[in-house]
């Protein structure tokens, strides 16, 4: 119990602290320290859940089970590594005069607040609080995306706010509908929004209401996951915000939105006893894999490029959970993990590459490997990993998704393979141009923190070769929960 309180309280306290002292010189260190403490608390929480099993806390408003504890741990880990990366990155931005001390204070404070909202969203048992936390996450990231106050960043933030605001309003309507259905079974006082209660009575919930509710919830949280055709905000927000923000947006926020969809899917599956929710997810998942794959080759901005790649992978994960079953759900969870680790590592490398080149335009970034071998190799290996090359973990999960598709939905396999092939061709070509060739890039004024890049890629490599038994067991339990 005390562990979860710490997991939620530390980021909140850090946010308050940084709102007061975020302009000081050592704000970045406070930020990292706060994130490290959160990670430690999340680690203890994980150990506790492994030994004691799922638990309900704080008058049942919060709960932790195998599904969300692994996401909490992942969120805390990537949050910590991102804070390490952001320390030199933001100093360089400050030196270049792109950010004032007041903006840095806003950045540090909102970064911690963002972590806090995501951790609340992941650990809450109340579907209403889940919605509130998702909306709060949107608000904090709107401020982060608009941090530079350039016309382009304001536009991106406005688009992000309006699109996700509308989307998430749909999700609220879906939540109300679920309450409407559950209240008839559980009554006013029965905790009709608590997920564990809903899960216990899911077979008695009215199917027509639940299927309508799922459509609204799927559209709502799907907007935030970046599913086509509601993905427009995502590349802009990734390109215009500071790179640490792109890393946590891609690596964490999309996962959290997807987690909300999965939780709702479990309820709807129980009430409907048909594959309605799964079919919806498979359809939109497939569309979301195919469309961005063809957009990749047209991108000129490197962060937009990887933004589109994130959309594609979210589509793949949605498709996997849509297929359902132990193998596909296992693969979906694994893919969530490896995508989040790999994509944030790529953004770390890309961020410094863009700083060295002074631009995010792909054609103007050349010869990274000669000027700074670590950044060059980090970007190259990260891209290979995200494109699904063995022996990285992305290959394992994609292989599992594809084999399940071959077995149960053979018609989908050629579509998926084509999209992955197109993505490979267009992205590899672009990354190659940036990494090799005669350098146009200059060294940085601060030493970049590249340890996170290789730690992440190392973990992804490990997950490709060998998944530790307890982790596999954990995935299996979570996959059983999802069904």
């Amino acid at each position, binding site marked *: 119990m005390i562990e979860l309180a710490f997991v939620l309280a530390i980021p909140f306290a850090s946010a308050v602290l940084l709102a007061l002292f975020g302009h000081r010189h050592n704000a970045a260190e406070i930020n990292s320290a706060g994130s490290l403490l959160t990670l430690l608390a999340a680690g203890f929480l994980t150990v506790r859940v492994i030994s004691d099993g799922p638990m309900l806390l704080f008058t049942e408003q919060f709960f932790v089970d195998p599904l969300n504890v692994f996401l909490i741990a992942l969120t805390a880990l990537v949050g910590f590594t991102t804070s390490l990366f952001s320390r030199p990155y933001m100093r360089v931005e400050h030196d270049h005069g792109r950010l004032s001390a007041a903006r840095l204070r806003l950045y540090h404070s909102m970064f911690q607040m963002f972590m806090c909202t995501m951790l609340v969203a992941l650990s809450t048992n109340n579907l209403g609080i889940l919605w509130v936390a998702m909306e709060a996450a949107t608000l904090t990231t709107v401020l982060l995306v608009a941090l530079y106050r350039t016309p382009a960043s*304001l536009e991106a933030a406005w688009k992000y706010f309006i699109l996700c605001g509308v989307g998430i309003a749909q999700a609220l309507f879906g939540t109300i*509908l679920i309450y409407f259905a559950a209240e008839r079974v559980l009554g006013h006082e029965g905790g009709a929004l608590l997920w564990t209660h809903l899960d216990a009575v899911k077979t008695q919930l009215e199917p027509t209401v639940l299927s309508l509710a799922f459509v609204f919830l799927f559209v709502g949280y799907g907007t935030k996951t970046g599913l086509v055709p509601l993905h427009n905000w995502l590349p802009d927000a990734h390109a215009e915000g500071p790179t640490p923000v792109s890393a946590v947006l891609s690596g964490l926020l999309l996962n959290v939105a997807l987690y909300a969809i999965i939780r709702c899917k479990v309820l709807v599956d129980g009430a409907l006893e048909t594959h309605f929710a799964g079919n919806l997810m498979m359809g939109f998942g497939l569309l979301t894999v195919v469309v961005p794959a063809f957009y990749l080759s047209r991108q000129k901005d490197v962060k937009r490029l990887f933004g589109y790649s994130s959309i594609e992978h979210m589509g793949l994960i949605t498709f996997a959970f849509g297929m359902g079953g132990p193998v596909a759900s296992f693969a979906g969870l694994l893919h969530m993990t490896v995508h989040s680790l790999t994509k944030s590592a790529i953004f770390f490398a890309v961020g410094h590459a863009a700083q060295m080149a002074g631009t995010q335009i792909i054609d103007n970034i050349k010869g990274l490997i000669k000027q700074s071998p670590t950044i060059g190799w980090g970007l190259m290996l990260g891209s290979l990993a995200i494109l699904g090359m063995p022996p990285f973990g992305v290959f394992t999960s994609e292989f599992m998704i594809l084999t399940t598709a071959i077995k149960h939905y053979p018609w989908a396999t050629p579509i998926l393979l084509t999209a992955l092939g197109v993505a490979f061709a267009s992205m590899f070509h672009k990354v190659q141009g940036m990494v090799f060739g005669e350098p146009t890039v200059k060294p940085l004024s601060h030493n970049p923190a590249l340890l996170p890049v290789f730690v992440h890629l190392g973990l992804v490599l490990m997950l490709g070769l060998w998944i530790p038994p307890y982790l596999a067991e954990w995935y299996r339990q979570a996959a059983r929960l999802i069904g």
Partner: protein
Amino acid sequence: MSLSLANTIPLSSQMINLCAAIMLLIGFAMLAQRRVLTLINLFMLQGFVLFVSTLIVALSTDQSHLLWSAGLTLLLKVIALPYILHRLIRQLSVKWDIETLFNIPTTMLVGIALVVIAFNVAQPISQLSGTITRATIGIALACVLLAFLMMITRSKAVPQVIAFLAMENGLFFAATSATYGMPMVVELGIALDVLVGMVILGVFFFQIREQFDSLDIRHMERNKEK
């Protein structure tokens, strides 16, 4: 028949249905309104109707937490947000702005179609509903869709935000009147989010005008696919 039916329906439900009808009417009025100032007043009125209907539900079902949410609605939707909006348009000197809208009759017709769709979608639910406020969930959905349409047809920043808030009104209406109240903690959270969002947007308005010399969203088209 209709007379006897009217006699069997309790007064409170009739009042809620009346409120629902007014909500929808205001939704249409906002859709057609071109003046920013009047738009804010309409939004305030909608908030007030929402407050009244929540109050009726609270009194007729004896749920004390709904009284709190009625108070919250009054405070936030009728007093705080309109006040912030009024101050904003004064500071931005867009108080007397008139927007050129494309073809209001067409927009209204699309609006009517949306209401029909909303009622159709909500029909299976209304049939299940034991409460006599069975039409309200359809109307709430219609209000949400009308606000959505308004958001699409407007190009200025302030009306877009008012549309966003009107959408929130429709959702609140669904939560309080159709289902007889969501848990309080959720409503508090939603209210807080709306307020924070409004403040953030207020700051944004100034930034946008500074950068683009206008609050017209059409001026920001640079990020389109190059």
